[in-house]
């Protein structure tokens, strides 16, 4: 277990370094000049030159990269061109909103996927199975922004049950935090839940057909025990992987849903950074997303070896 963790951590560091080089190169290759954007449409050469120099953009790219990565390893991701704030502060400021939404969404997704996917796998081609297939197809196909707007119009507009948008920190008002979380979490949860439902179904189906399940049944174990001990435990394994990937995706910000619900998360920050060609923020955000992906993959792998004793270092 420890050896696995050490090996995986070393791999992650190498991958992160690679990501930093690629990100830096890509970000600077994209057309568009952050200084021009910062000046707005009214352009003045002297102001432009002054800003450019202040941002260090007059230095050669290699120098800029080395300076950036050198500071990054000490935890200093630089200062946003757009706002003048430290990148780490900008990211930390948005972390609670993103964490709230990602965890709530994955909860919604699992609450949908596990019962629905299991039910439809237990009775293939039944009505439940058909309905689950159609619903998850819809969930995957419907654009998130449309779903979000419909939920707003219905549950915030007509019914008035939830706020139409905005985020309230948990520390400020837990009840309001929860209420403001419902609609965005349901929107993203429905999509992730649809993906996971299909996955759960095929995974449970596969486990049901396994020989040890047949044996367990032949032994005369009650169906419930077979399901809990022999089917779900095995079906859970692949689900953990997919859930980990979904969670990583949600943690790197769900741009569309964040925009629709005015949710101040990391996705919005990254989008603003792209639009403004705010290199430091963009680089910092991508590096963080890569880190989150690697971390969750690591956690999933370690969890795997716990869930399945056959896999171990």
């Amino acid at each position, binding site marked *: 277990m420890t050896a696995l963790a050490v090996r995986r951590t070393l791999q992650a560091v190498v991958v992160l370094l690679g990501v930093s080089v690629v990100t830096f190169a890509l970000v600077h290759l994209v057309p568009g000049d952050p200084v021009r954007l910062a000046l707005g449409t009214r352009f003045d050469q002297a102001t432009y030159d002054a800003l450019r120099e202040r941002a260090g953009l007059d230095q050669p790219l290699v120098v800029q990269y080395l300076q950036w990565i050198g500071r990054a390893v000490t935890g200093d991701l630089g200062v946003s061109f757009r706002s003048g704030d430290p990148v780490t502060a900008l990211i930390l400021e948005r972390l609670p909103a993103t964490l709230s939404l990602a965890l709530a969404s994955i909860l919604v997704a699992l609450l949908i996927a596990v019962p629905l996917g299991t039910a439809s796998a237990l009775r293939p081609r039944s009505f439940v199975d058909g309905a689950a297939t159609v619903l998850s197809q819809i969930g995957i196909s419907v654009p998130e922004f449309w779903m979000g707007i419909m939920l707003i*119009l219905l549950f915030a507009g007509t019914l008035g049950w939830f706020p139409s948008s905005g985020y309230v920190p948990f520390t400020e008002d837990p009840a309001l935090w929860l209420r403001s979380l419902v609609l965005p979490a349901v929107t993203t949860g429905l999509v992730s839940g649809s993906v996971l439902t299909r996955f759960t179904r095929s995974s449970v189906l596969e486990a049901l057909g396994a020989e040890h399940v047949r044996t367990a049944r032949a032994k005369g174990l009650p169906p419930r025990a077979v399901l809990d001990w022999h089917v779900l435990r095995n079906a859970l394994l692949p689900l953990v992987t997919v859930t980990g990937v979904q969670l990583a995706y949600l943690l790197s910000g769900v741009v569309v849903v964040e925009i629709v619900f005015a949710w101040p998360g990391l996705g919005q920050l990254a989008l603003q950074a792209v639009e403004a*060609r705010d290199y430091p923020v963009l680089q910092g955000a991508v590096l963080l997303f890569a880190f989150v992906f690697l971390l969750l993959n690591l956690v999933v792998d370690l969890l795997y070896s716990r869930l399945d004793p056959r896999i171990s270092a």
Partner: protein
Amino acid sequence: MRRRTVLTSLAASSIAVAGCSTGEGVDTGGAGETGGGGGGDAAAFVAAISAQPDQLDPHKTTAYASFQVLENVYDTLVVPSADDLSMQPSLATGWTTSDDQLTWTFTLREGVVFHDGSPFTAEDVVFSYRRIIDQQLANSARFASVADVVAQDPTRVVLTLSAPTPNLLSNIGGFKGMAILPRSVDEASLTTKAVGTGPFRLESSGAGEIALTRFEDHWGQAPSIDGVTFQFITEPAAALTALTGDQVQWTDNVPAQQVASLAGDDAVELGQVASVDYWYLAMNCAKAPFDSRDVRRAVAFALDREAITEAARFDTARVNQTAIPEGSEWHHDYAPFTTDVDQAKSLLAGAGVGGPLTMGLMVTSEYPETVTAAQVIASQLEPLGITVDIQTEDFATWLDRQGRGDFDAFMLGWLGNIDPADFYNEQHRTDGPNNYQKYSNPVTDDLLDRAGVEGDRATRKSLYDQAAQQIVDDVSYLYLYNPDAIQAWKPGITGYETRADKAVDFETVTLPS
């Protein structure tokens, strides 16, 4: 001079105000106490703006969203009036100009304090202006003719100019980018903190909202509302639902196509005013065949501006063949082009353009109306044998290409213009910093140069009228329309006014009783 009673400071944006709010960031319940029509018990109100301010340093930001907030926090020496945008006293109560127009002496208001309690003096004006000039911040070009700024005594500031500058007042007061900061301010903190003299002080700023509270020691009357919370709601459907649901009391996130239906809605009050913004098409005067004046004029004759305006803005814009809107004292009624395809064809033939022609038209998704308008323009130029290749770019790439001159034509707008110099100088002088279309006519240059230093208002207007005519005739810009400023708020809110310069000023707002 007397203080204006309504809409005092805040040149850059306008705002609204609204009914009962809980003072919480988000609550659909609308259960908050209703303010007693002003006075101290009124709750704060929530304004939904369409974008998050990039930063709050007034001298560094160029984002409209930032100025919507800063309008309520900072003051300038002078401000544009709500009705005709003429420059009125604010932190300066009066000013005198020397005979040669090179020395301006401003008398400052006494008894003004900053939000941190420090007194406002002439030294603060010198510090603020020197900061913009010496650090070459975003608006330093507005001080191009300012040779020196000196505090004569605590209540008098003298600006020495290198050339007469009749638009000096709109340069230093047109918007809050020229705000006065205390000289003791910690400059690095200004991106997220604010120390101004305005009616509201900045309480907190974050990724989700910005909160302002009433400044009791404001030099004018303190506002009747407790404060303003700005929320950033990009999606119009969410903003309008929040407004009708009492979650916010004011928004400027009102799409043009919704205006007609909202106008009949009792749950919403609509503010709609012709703005000083204008949208235009520019063709590349340095690139064949658009370097030919006749080709550009052919395009001008082929277009139906009414149809373009209708498609881009529904009924919320006014067609204009010049830049300055009707209603401004600088407006010049001049509309030489009528839609005339035959005339256009003969101009093209005369210019020696025989065969079919392709015109790349660069537009940007940042301003969706340019994308819509481009489609109409394309269909209108078809009969002329001009194929329009619509190139939709993100704004960063768009600006890049514009700066490099890498375009046949583009469409964009200029926002927040007040003085005619704002409308014409940078865009149409041969060496103008924003003359991307590379227009050059010595006659226009001469007229603009003379107008730029002309002290007599009537003569100055006449010079700008002539320059405008030349610009329109040469089709340096093909002007299309002036859009309306559109805002919506809860019924019952008073003391708020939608302004032509889109400055959002909540100082005099009162909630319904």
